[in-house]
């Protein structure tokens, strides 16, 4: 663990956080503080009223000095009136404090997701989704904890000042004692919240770990089960959970320790004031009613005092949550866009790459010196062994990543010059693993873009998805569930393909986009694509000769370099690696035929 932060730093950052939240929604905060002030003044009023009632009603009547008569009416009405006033204050404060807290949480979460949507993918490689979700949900909630007790705390501060004022006005010695006592208790409170702050951060961190493990473990549930590692996973979680438990216990231990001072303060104060007050009473400088007011007031301070304690406590809590939120919000690795608008013409675009080099992390070179030249409306296949950089190249073509060196251009325009959301108006990408959203089929295809119905239907037909989509319970309106789990892998791929085709892009990049589709269906799709006369330049990452047959030329990639670029037939003849890759199945089948032949002969002889 790092060295504890200084109290002044915690306070400074905590106050800065409060200022940030309050500034964003000053109206609600003012109303909540107003409610708290009403409440505080009601408490003071209640004590004053009880003191008056003691002097004017209780002592005279019960000591038999005065007859009851209708004296009681005034006292009862006064006390009831104060209660109504107090209740109104509470409603006002809680309503607006709650609104402020909820609103701020929603704001924060939206800021977080909005911010993350603008960051480079490189940043996400270092994060876990479960952890990022925890930042949004748990830390976002935690960061605003301070907003619930803050108006009350502000009100309570006024109440404390007023109490000291009233007590001093009644008796300056009692006032002085109260002031010293309150000062001491606030000092203890501050120290307590500072000490718990570090412990809080540890809790937050452990919570993130638990969430991350759970997310990964459920994500890979099939693998966990298939390998029978449920217990191992449970132990992994148990370790994180126990760490979290210990961190929580440490926070609670500190809380209980400092809490003991704060909670016993009103009781100690009341008794001390009573003792000193009794002596003053003897001296005649105080009436019994005034003494009751003073002690009653102090006993009423029990709840505000406790909640005041929560203000500092929650400030530390909030700051711990905010630090994690802020880590994300201050990440500046944005994807930088230019200001170029799309030029959505109904023709294919020329794609060029010059000396393109790329590595996900330094030293791990994926592509180097890649030269591309794809004339408009051509179809090019990218072929290469597993791990040769095909998918990376595909992602560079649609600017999911930027090359480390060199540039990729579309009709001579560097991809980086396009404004946000402009490039997708000209290019479409279908990844190897189809990602579907928890929406209906139509929503998954349009992704918010207004597309003519017949264009969607044509795309579904072309992707051979029209029949199974029509057979779904609500057709195109059928909800697909998270990640489209209600569909098979092949069906997911076909919907993803339709999503790209429906846009009639100028550049279509397919990354082995039919790998999970049945051969017969795939044949239909390929035939369709060939005949559809799309206004697109097509780059298709593929292994199957059938997909390659679509292509005018083939780029053969190996070890992150373009080894050759030419027609399929030429490459077969000139590139032995390419031929091995493409003819693997045929050669294997032939070899087996031969083996079996030998086997039968051997058996016959």
């Amino acid at each position: 663990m790092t060295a504890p932060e200084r109290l002044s730093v915690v306070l400074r950052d905590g106050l800065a956080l409060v200022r940030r939240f309050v500034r964003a929604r000053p109206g609600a905060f003012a109303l909540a503080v107003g409610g708290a002030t009403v409440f505080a003044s009601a408490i003071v009023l209640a004590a004053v009223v009880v003191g008056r009632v003691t002097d004017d009603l209780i002592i005279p009547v019960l000591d038999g000095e005065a007859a009851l008569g209708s004296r009681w009416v005034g006292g009862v009405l006064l006390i009831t009136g104060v209660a109504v006033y107090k209740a109104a204050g509470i409603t006002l404060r809680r309503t607006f404090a709650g609104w402020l807290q909820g609103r701020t949480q929603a704001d924060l979460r939206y800021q977080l997701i909005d911010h993350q949507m603008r960051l480079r993918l490189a940043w996400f490689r270092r994060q876990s989704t479960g952890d990022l979700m925890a930042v949004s949900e748990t830390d976002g909630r935690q960061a605003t904890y301070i907003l619930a007790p803050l108006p009350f705390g502000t009100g309570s501060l006024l109440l404390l000042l007023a109490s000291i004022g009233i007590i001093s006005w009644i008796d300056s010695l009692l006032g002085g004692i109260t002031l010293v006592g309150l000062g001491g208790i606030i000092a203890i409170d501050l120290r307590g919240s500072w000490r718990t702050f570090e412990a809080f951060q540890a809790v937050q961190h452990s919570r993130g770990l638990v969430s991350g493990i759970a997310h990964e473990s459920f994500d890979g549930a099939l693998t966990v089960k298939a390998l029978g590692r449920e217990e191992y996973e449970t132990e992994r979680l148990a370790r994180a959970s126990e760490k979290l438990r210990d961190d929580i216990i440490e926070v609670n231990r500190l809380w209980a320790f400092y809490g003991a001072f704060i909670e016993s303060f009103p009781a100690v104060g009341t008794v001390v004031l009573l003792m000193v007050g009794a002596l003053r009473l003897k001296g005649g400088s105080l009436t019994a009613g005034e003494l009751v007011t003073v002690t009653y007031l102090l006993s009423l301070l029990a709840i505000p005092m406790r909640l005041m304690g929560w203000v500092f406590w929650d400030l530390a809590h909030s700051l711990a949550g905010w630090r994690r939120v802020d880590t994300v919000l201050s990440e500046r690795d944005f994807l930088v866009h230019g200001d170029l608008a799309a030029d959505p013409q109904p023709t294919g675009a020329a794609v060029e790459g010059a000396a393109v080099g790329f590595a996900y992390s330094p030293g791990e070179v994926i592509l180097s010196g890649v030269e591309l030249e794809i004339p408009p409306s051509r179809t090019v296949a990218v072929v290469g062994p597993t791990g040769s950089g095909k998918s990376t190249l595909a992602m560079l073509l649609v600017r999911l990543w930027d090359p480390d060196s060199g540039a990729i251009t579309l009709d001579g325009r560097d991809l980086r010059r396009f404004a946000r959301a402009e490039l997708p108006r000209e290019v479409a990408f279908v990844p190897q693993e189809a990602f579907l959203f928890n929406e209906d089929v139509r929503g998954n295809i349009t992704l918010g873009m207004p597309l003519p119905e017949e264009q969607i239907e044509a795309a579904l037909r072309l992707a051979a998805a029209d029949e199974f989509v029509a057979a779904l319970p609500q057709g195109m309106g059928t909800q697909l569930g998270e990640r489209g789990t209600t569909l098979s892998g092949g069906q997911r791929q076909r919907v993803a393909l339709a999503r790209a085709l429906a846009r009639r892009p100028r550049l279509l990049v397919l990354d082995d986009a039919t790998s999970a589709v049945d051969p017969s269906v795939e044949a239909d799709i390929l035939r369709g694509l060939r005949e559809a006369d799309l206004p697109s330049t097509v780059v298709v990452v593929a292994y199957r000769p059938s997909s390659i047959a679509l292509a005018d030329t083939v780029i053969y990639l190996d070890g992150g370099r373009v080894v050759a670029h030419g027609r399929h037939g030429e490459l077969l003849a000139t590139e032995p690696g390419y031929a091995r890759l493409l003819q693997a199945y045929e050669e294997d089948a032939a070899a087996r035929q031969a083996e079996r032949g030998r086997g039968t002969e051997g058996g016959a002889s």
Partner: protein
Amino acid sequence: MTAAKPEGAPLEARLALRRALREAPAVLRGFPLTLVLMLAGTGMQIVVPIAIQQIVDGEILAAGGVNTGGVLRLGVLALAGIVAAAAARRLGLVRMLRASATGLSDLRVTTFRHLHRLSILHTESERRGALVSRVTSDMTTIQDFMDFGGVAMILGSLQVLLAVGLMTWYRWQLSLLVVGGVAMYGVLLAWFQRILARAHDRVRVRVADSLAAVGEAISGLPIVRAYGAEDATLERVRRALERQFRAEFRANRLGAFLFSSAELFAGLITAAVIGVGVWLGPGRGVTAGSLLAFLFLVNLLVEPVQMVVETLDLVQSAGAGVRRILGVLDTPVDVPDPVDGVDLPTGSLDVDFAGIRFRYPTGPDVLSELTVSIPDGTRVAVVGETGSGKTTFAKLVTRLLDPTEGWVIIGGVPLNRVRFASLRRRVAFVPQEGFLFDASVGANVRYGRPEAGDDEVRAAFEELGLADWLAQLPAGLATPVGERGGQLSVGERQLVALVRAWISDPDLLVLDEATSAVDPALEVRLRRAMERLTAGRTSITVAHRLSTAEAADEVLVFEKGRLVERGRHEDLLAAGGPYAALHADWAAGTASL
């Protein structure tokens, strides 16, 4: 809904919490001593009114004026009591919070374990975010309740008991008035709670929704970006957050109303006590000191009621959290590890399917009338169109699912009688997805056999002919693969997943499209290596690349959930049936022009 459930929500919340306590016994460990400490601690609150009554009646208003010595003596006594009580309270609190944190950690682990015991039917149909929240945010709601509400409730009820006892001792008539008032208010609260409970349940649902929306936006970011759908996605998240906010604010408003009603109630009780107190008068033994003590006691009584009201939202959200967790724990394990199960016989394993029918809980038959036996040592390929039931077949062989009807028998033992430990060691399943954990390549392979050393892991890569792939990784076995293996290509992930299954040295190997994203040359090489290595062992390979079928001893052809053809590749080809048709499509696709 309300009419059908006369018992009401508060009772449910309470019952649910009680059930949770049973599931996490550590919460109650050492509870008696904790309770004693707390009881002693609460005494602190009672000292003050007693001291007031004694000092006012005995010393201040006593005949002969204020007795200084008496005041001091009583005061010092009271202070000592308060300090001792604070110490006891603190000790009790720490013990209680420690117990609750421990109990909850246990409950989290229990829930997690149970979730993993449930079959893939559950884990695949639930949203990931929802599953994660079972062991995170749902647990946090209980933790918050335990830390604040639970403490407040226990201390509060102790305080109420002491206050009522003391009141009754002072003046039973007034005490009756106060207790009657509290009881009436309690009934009102119970009724109101139901509304609050519904509001909180709605909040939980909205939270899960917006969490899912956020998670989807993050994990789907590449697609969102590639399609310029940032604004639409943000709008979706914003709407989910807005709905969450509205639900939360509604619950919060109800809470505000509830809390202010408690305050109003306290004022009314105070007024009534003074009114009735002076009316009863000294004739019925009401002294000024005891009536003043009563005002303090009313505060003592009302304060815990307020604290409880304050934490009612916590009770409700904890109740909702508990209900969701119990929902998990109460879900019977649909594919259970048999009690006193048996081990699979040693050596190669044969597989028998007898009268198998399978359907998902809500859906038509996925497999029906399936009876097939696979002799040991056979290499079987399973082919068929998407949705023909091939993957379900693979999941039944590995008992990731249990059949709706019929028996799966492996090595002569009904599969549901085989101990999981034995089954998972002997039967390996490699799904298409190639899921990797966020760890190194080596750690991912060792996931299949934890005791394997680096040399064995390297040897496994070598056996499958993947030594050169391993060699080109920047840090060899120590190369990190990233979340879900995202730093490797899809095909590479499948390689690691394959080695991971391979290293466990299984006697029955079930591959479900396990090399679908690997290049053909490598796939052929892998298949060759595995054939050599698995000679004499049984293997079942689901594939849509029919080259696998060409190499198999036997091909099973599925169509719409039924086994329609079986036999050797050549024979099936000659028969001109469904397989021949599939193969024609495949051949047309692979012929290298």
